């Protein structure tokens, strides 16, 4: 069959070139769908399987994935069995041919606990100071307690205060793993309880939604392997916001100077090429500059002048929000300058001359005609800069990102915005959790979710920029 193409080589090449497009698209699609499926799938209340093995062992957990057996033909399956306090591990590999029975009993519960991670097993009883409930009644009571606590936590009128019988500290649960080991759990360590096997589709969707919301709105727990990424989102947004506040005026100023004021000679052309090329300089180099000049240079001097009482522990002389924003502002400066210059260059000279001919000074021409017309281009540049900065991690590793920031950079304490504090960042969160975490397997789903979030943020920003640019071209077109 290939002979035909071998004879007509000219007809073979187009297919190979088409294949490169197809392969690129395939890779992109695979990456995005992997992130979407794994990132969003993690929050889905997956069924809990109860598995009896050939040696009589009984385990229960979520099936995660399968892989070929290392020593003999066949496959094995990874189960997320939780119960680290009982088993010493969260995971268990099970060879498929040793599985005797599989079932999904509705009464299996998944408890989200403050310590030792999740628990998977059966709820035996809820023991309150004055009564002990078992079976379905125990489940009902547990749910009621958790709901009440959530309403209290949400600041709704406290029933506990109004003399209701709700006293969480005294209540405890008796739970039992599937192979029959029992444990007592005080009610206050339980965050949430669910019975995934008993859920209807609607309940699952609801649980999924609230899990996604918790991921977005809560802080990390258990060494970043659990909980949410709110501080990282907040840190990323705050840093990018500060950066755009810095980069926009300076980038626009430089672009106006280059395009409207500077003598358009050889020097300006050289400077323009230089600025363009700076966009290609690796981000890590900017990080080195930020560390050397901002952190050690300026930060060190600031510490000597104003914060000498706390030395040798540095205040500004170490990585922090301000230095990170400044470094990224410098990094994205070429993006803003180039985009703004393109916008300025696209404004017909007739508009400038029209304004001048009416007696406008150059400043009036710029502020009343040129800048408003170039605004979409500037906005495009700033959005592209923000998109680039949001995804950039390498320079931040040098100038102020933290794996777990103890304090938010913005709080109710004077001066409210703490520019010297370290902050968390979505991109660095991915790197750190995936590569320096204790249990990568446990952290993986959250890393997927974080990566998906970061990609979404960056893609939405880029799409906005593309849309704006497209809109701009069309507007100029007519």
């Amino acid at each position: 069959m290939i002979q035909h193409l071998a004879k007509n080589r000219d007809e073979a090449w187009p297919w190979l070139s088409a294949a490169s497009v197809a392969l690129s698209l395939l890779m992109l699609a695979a990456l995005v769908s992997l992130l979407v499926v794994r990132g969003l799938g993690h929050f889905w209340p997956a069924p809990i399987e109860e598995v009896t093995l050939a040696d009589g062992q009984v385990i229960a957990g979520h099936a995660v994935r399968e892989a070929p057996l290392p020593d003999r033909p066949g496959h094995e399956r990874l189960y997320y069995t939780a119960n680290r306090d009982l088993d010493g591990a969260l995971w268990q590999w099970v060879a498929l041919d040793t599985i005797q029975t599989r079932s999904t009993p509705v009464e299996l519960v998944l408890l989200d606990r403050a310590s030792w991670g999740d628990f998977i097993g059966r709820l035996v009883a809820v023991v309150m100071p004055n009564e002990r409930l078992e079976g379905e009644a125990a489940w009902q009571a547990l749910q009621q307690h958790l709901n009440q606590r959530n309403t209290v936590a949400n600041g709704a009128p406290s029933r506990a205060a109004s003399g209701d019988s709700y006293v969480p500290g005294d209540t405890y649960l008796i739970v039992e793993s599937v192979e029959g080991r029992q444990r007592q759990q005080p009610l206050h360590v339980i965050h949430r309880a669910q019975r995934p096997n008993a859920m209807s589709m609607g309940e699952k969707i609801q649980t999924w939604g609230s899990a996604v919301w918790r991921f977005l709105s809560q802080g990390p727990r258990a060494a970043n392997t659990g909980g949410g990424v709110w501080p990282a989102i907040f840190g990323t947004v705050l840093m990018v916001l500060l950066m755009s506040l810095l980069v926009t005026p300076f980038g626009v100023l430089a672009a106006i100077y280059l395009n409207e004021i500077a003598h358009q000679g050889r020097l300006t052309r050289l400077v323009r090429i230089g600025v363009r090329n700076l966009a290609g300089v690796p981000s890590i180099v900017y990080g080195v500059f930020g560390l050397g000049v901002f952190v050690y240079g300026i930060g060190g001097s600031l510490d000597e002048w104003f914060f000498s009482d706390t030395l040798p522990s540095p205040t500004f002389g170490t990585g922090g929000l301000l230095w990170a924003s400044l470094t990224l502002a410098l990094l994205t400066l070429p993006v803003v300058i180039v985009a703004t210059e393109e916008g300025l260059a696209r404004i017909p000279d007739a508009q400038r001359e029209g304004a001048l001919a009416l007696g406008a000074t150059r400043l009036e021409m710029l502020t009343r005609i040129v800048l408003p017309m170039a605004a979409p281009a500037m906005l495009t540049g700033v959005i592209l800069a923000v998109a680039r900065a949001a995804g950039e991690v390498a320079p931040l590793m040098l100038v102020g990102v933290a794996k777990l920031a103890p304090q938010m950079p913005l709080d109710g304490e004077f001066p409210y915005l703490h520019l010297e504090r370290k902050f968390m960042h979505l991109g660095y969160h991915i790197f750190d959790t995936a590569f320096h975490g204790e249990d990568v397997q446990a952290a993986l789903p959250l890393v997927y979710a974080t990566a998906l979030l970061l990609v979404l943020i960056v893609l939405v920003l880029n799409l906005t920029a593309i849309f704006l640019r497209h809109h701009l071209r069309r507007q100029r077109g007519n």
Partner: protein
Amino acid sequence: MTPPSDTLNQRLRLARDRLATGLITAGGIGVLLAVLAIAVFLLWETLPLLRLGDTLALAKLTPLAWGTLKAAFYALLFAVPLALGAAMYSALFMSTRLRHRLKPTLEMMEAIPGVVVGFIAGLIIAPWVERHLAGTLLLVIGLPLSALVAGTIWHHLGTRLQRTLPLSWAGLWLVPWFVLMIALAFWVTPLLEQQLPEDDLRRFLDKQWGIDYATRNAMIVGVAMGFAVIPSIYALAEDALADVPKSLLEGAQALGATRWQALWKVALPTAGPGLFSAVMIGAGRAVGETMIVLMASGNTALFSASPFEGMRSISAAIAIELPEAAPGGLTYHLLILAALALFVFTFLVNTLAEAVRQRLRRRYRRLEGHP
């Protein structure tokens, strides 16, 4: 008719204009100087190395430089054929509708943060490839072959089918075909591997030729970083090819050349400098990329050209070691020297690429008959 003249207002406006012009000039020059300061700072901080005069310390940088070049080489090995192929296809064969969709899609691809690509490559793909090495290697040969097979089948299809699946949309409808082929490859390889004496390609390579296989290696970095640089090479190469004056291609085709011959004999030589500068820009990006190498390379400073072994790049070393290096110490200055090397290299490469592109643009203008 006399104008409403308000001399005070006039003078105020004029003063404001002068002031603003001065401020903009000062600001603009200031920003440009700040940008220049990067180079000055890097140079200044490397000077103490001369005083320390410890030439042995430079030897520390050689494996890093090697690792950087190796990573960039494998990335380009993967990215250049794909990106240039995609550029040729979209400039010459692709339907305009698909092309207008493809460009922003690949722009999206460029925007995906390096840390995400690095995470997927280092934590997901690397262990997976380790388990399916034979299948992956088969794909390297298999996918291009399968595209040719698709082409051959297409030539034997009826005209109706050819019209529903035109070559101009092949970039899209080959995707499911590839999915099928990849599935096939991974179904077939275990059977093939059983023919090997060792039953597993990795062990076979080790026993037979003593080839080590590291989970995170140059091949993985090449694919991941290739993924990241494909869009920038593609965008520039596509621009260069699409800007080739249509009259040239039509002229060649009027003389009886096929579309591919017209591309090969006319478009490529004309757009050659543009393609070259596209590859240069890609090389610049590959050399400086940090997170992907850091996460997918294994980060071991080895002197080895093997695609199955890891490396450590300059940028990764800076990211990891510089925060811990004491300012003013030897390591600190050495790492700054490394940063300077990156800066100079990428700046030169980009300048060269830009100069080539500008010259090309002038050439196109001449070819189109403008002076």
